[in-house]
């Protein structure tokens, strides 16, 4: 499962609902794809071409770690 963005800022608005619609033919639709919800959907169905690339985009977007050494 991909990592969420580091230290996500709480939404400026009240928490919103994410929704999933699972169709009888096996397709999955998601609404309000937050990083956490997308990671969940990708883990549930890694073969779905919608969710895995999106979850991976979050992991790829992690800021580079700092290489500075903190002074003692």
């Amino acid at each position, binding site marked *: 499962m991909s990592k969420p*963005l*580091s*230290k*996500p*800022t709480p*939404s*400026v*608005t009240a928490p*919103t609902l994410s929704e999933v*619609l699972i*169709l009888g*033919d096996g*397709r999955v*639709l*998601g*609404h*309000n*794809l*937050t*990083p956490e919800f*997308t990671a969940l959907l990708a883990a549930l169905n890694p073969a779905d*071409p*919608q969710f895995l*690339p*999106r*979850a991976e*985009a*979050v992991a790829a*977007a*992690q*800021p580079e770690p700092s290489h500075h050494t903190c002074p003692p």
Partner: protein
Amino acid sequence: LDWVGQSRAALAGARAGAAREALRECRFCAHDCRVNRLGSDLGICRAGAETRVFSAQVDLADELELIPAFAVALSGCDLRCAFCISGGPSWNPGLGELISPTGLAAQATAELARGAKTILFEGGEPTIHLPYLLDVVSQLPDSARLVLKTNAYGSSVSRALLHGLFDVWCADYKFGNDACADRLARIPNYTQVVRENLVWAACQSDLIVRHLLMPGHIACCWQPVAAWLAAELPGVKVSLRTGFWPAWQSRRHVELTGPATAAEVRRAEALAKEFQLNLVH
């Protein structure tokens, strides 16, 4: 050519005042209501001078080249799409929170530092809130990649105020004919307006044209949209959204009570291939 040699922030700041003044006789969209939004008049979008935000968060629903996006959704819209996925706050500009442009810009800048690739403004419809939008943009770093997600029903007034400010326009081409636009979203003269906006956007920014595949609307909507894009904007990025969600007032239209079928999705994708569209996901 007020933009030549100016930073984006400075340009947006300079235009924000003009945009606020333009609220006295609002002509931001093709409805051309000409109401005084600084007073008590309301046009079709029902928005006054105030802008509210109903969502501001990192979002992954957009095209892969745009995500992770810090997506800011402004309340209110000038269209009345029965199938709107965010119908409540999109139809009601009074919902959501009042957030200062400075506060929103600070949050967006912080999200860029945390890894967001773009800052994306959506709605509702962001172009009905140009004073606020330009004010926020004027406080964002020039290096930020900005995306305007729009229904492409804006006017030449809006285009002049937006020119050169957004790196990407992600614009809807929802309906393939005026009858469907009128019946499902109460939009007059849709085809002419949306085409004018798309041609303009293609000339001045990166453009992604979105089409939400509606069940039962392949022949009347998707096919003419695909044909026009192939003929008039060859090579433009096209995002065919196949996950129609029967939300809001969809049930008022018998064909919109469920999602697009798998067969419809296959047919729509085959049409995209026939027209050699440059699909992005």
